């Protein structure tokens, strides 16, 4: 089983000198769900645009199923499906007509097209609304229709740019289920981007964390969490002089299973640890004899949030970026559409 997506040193520089993608290399195996995880402006969509033949790389090469995305662009387009971030369904057509058009673009024979349209409509739960204008659909329904469009021609590789952005939890879960079923039933390779940590964690076989155009870490969710520490220990001092606290933190850092200690909010500290249950008593032993009091200790499993923070020094702000951006886009559609 060879790599179905191979990217080597991909670079995209936009006019004005913005290095949106800055030397990105990775491989995706056939049948894998591979996630690109990064904050707004990290270069996720730009990477997809190069892999889907939409933009020419400024540097580097990429191959899909062995086909070069620049030289064999026409052939690549037959192999891939692309569900962009933009909710690119046509409001003036019905759901069914959108799919029919898609079948036309991908040159499916008429009979086959009809069968597949029924099939994907059922899969995304839009059979009942298929004859209504998309204009009357909710955001979640549009997204599901767009995904259905991407599935219609059964691509070997499906690109999903922020498939759940701005959707409510329930719809998001449903879409995760569709994505998993695609892999299980059709064996499709899926490349998705997200800035939801939990999504990448629960859905992806492997993840690349991308920040400012560069991949900062790549591996399975477990590996990435393992590198950071499996668990996160948060503790807070309720009393103690600055010197005493500093001494205490220094001792905690020396506990064997503690990977790293960072300053949290207020008097709090965040430590990434392995075998946290044993670290807790060790922490109290370590600070015994110092003039400090621990106010609270809590232990939780590391999430990719922690991983992102660890690798980039910054948090992903899901709410502001994600939902806000989506809403602005939707509003823009509405306003301009009239």
């Amino acid at each position: 089983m060879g790599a179905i997506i191979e990217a080597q040193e991909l670079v995209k520089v936009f006019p004005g000198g913005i290095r949106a993608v800055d030397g990105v290399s990775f491989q995706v195996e056939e049948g894998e769900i591979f996630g690109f995880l990064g904050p707004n402006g990290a270069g996720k969509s730009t990477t997809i645009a190069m892999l889907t033949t939409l933009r020419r790389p400024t540097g580097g090469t990429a191959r899909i199923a062995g086909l070069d995305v620049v030289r064999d662009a026409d052939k690549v387009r037959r192999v891939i499906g692309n569900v962009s971030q933009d909710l690119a369904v046509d409001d003036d057509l019905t759901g069914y007509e959108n799919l029919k058009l898609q079948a036309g673009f991908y040159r499916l024979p008429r009979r086959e097209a009809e069968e597949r349209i029924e099939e994907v409509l059922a899969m995304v739960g839009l059979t009942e609304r298929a004859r209504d204008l998309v204009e009357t659909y909710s955001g979640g329904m549009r997204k599901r229709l767009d995904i259905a469009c991407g599935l219609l021609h059964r691509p070997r590789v499906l690109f999903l740019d922020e498939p759940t952005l701005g959707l409510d939890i329930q719809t998001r879960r449903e879409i995760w289920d569709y994505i998993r079923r695609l892999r299980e039933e059709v064996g499709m390779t899926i490349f998705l981007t997200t800035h939801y940590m939990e999504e990448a964690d629960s859905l992806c076989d492997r993840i690349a964390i991308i920040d400012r155009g560069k991949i900062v870490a790549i591996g399975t969710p477990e590996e990435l969490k393992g590198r950071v520490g499996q668990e996160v220990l948060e503790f807070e001092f309720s009393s103690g002089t600055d010197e005493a606290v500093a001494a205490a933190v220094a001792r905690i850092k020396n506990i064997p299973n503690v990977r790293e200690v960072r300053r949290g909010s207020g008097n709090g500290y965040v430590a990434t640890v392995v075998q946290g249950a044993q670290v807790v008593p060790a922490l109290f032993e370590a600070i015994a004899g110092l003039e400090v009091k621990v106010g609270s200790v809590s232990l939780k499993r590391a999430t990719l949030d922690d991983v992102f923070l660890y690798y980039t020094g910054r948090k992903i702000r899901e709410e502001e970026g994600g939902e806000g951006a989506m809403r602005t886009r939707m509003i823009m559609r509405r306003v301009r559409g009239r």
Partner: protein
Amino acid sequence: MILRDIYWVFWRELKKLLRQRLHILMAVVQPAVWLALMGNAMSGLTANPVAARMLGTGNYLEFMTPGVMVMTSLFGGVYGGASVLWDRRLGFLNKMLTSPLHRAAIPLGKLLALLVQSLFQVLLIAIIALLLGVHFATGLPGIVFLLLLAGLFGMIMGGISLALAARIKSHETLFAIMNFFTMPLMFTSNALYPTRAMPSWLQKIAAYNPLSFAVTPMRTVATRGWVWGDILPGLAALLVMVVLVVALAVHQFSRSVD
């Protein structure tokens, strides 16, 4: 293969067009209003024998009808590129560009839809004109000829607009450019008043105005008959321009639309 691709782009445009009830209503009302207003306002003019001689007909409406036809397809074509800008903004253009769809099918399909739209409008104008008592010198074959020429001219404008839309990303810029040409094109042509009534410098411009290329043969056919000497030069010029403009539009879309 490319024919099927063109068909699907065309199919989409047509579906969208047919859903825009207001748009269709306007397409019907606008030429009717123009003809009725112009015909009435100018009827006094044709009572003057000098003016009538300049117009080449005793009925201003007869003179005007080909002009209104060409102007209608001019306006239809000029904004043809706007649909590309919409598709780009809503992400639909990217959807087409990442599919195996032949890139040339995008401008060609849209152009075909523009053609159908302007043929429909021009046919309406012909019917309204007939109802208003306009007599077409060459009868039904002449009317078909008028439709085709107006359609051809609409495709030239549509092709330019589409070619620009492949590069220009903002509605404002596209419309500014197209408007910049539309008005001068109209007023330096023989669409609204006869060349013979113009000062000589304007006559020279009017002779080379693409709008006149369409209007002259059409007016000849509508008011005088199949006078080939006055039909062929304009017709030939239009055909050459259509080929060039369509080739340009196709070329623009075949380059990466990066």
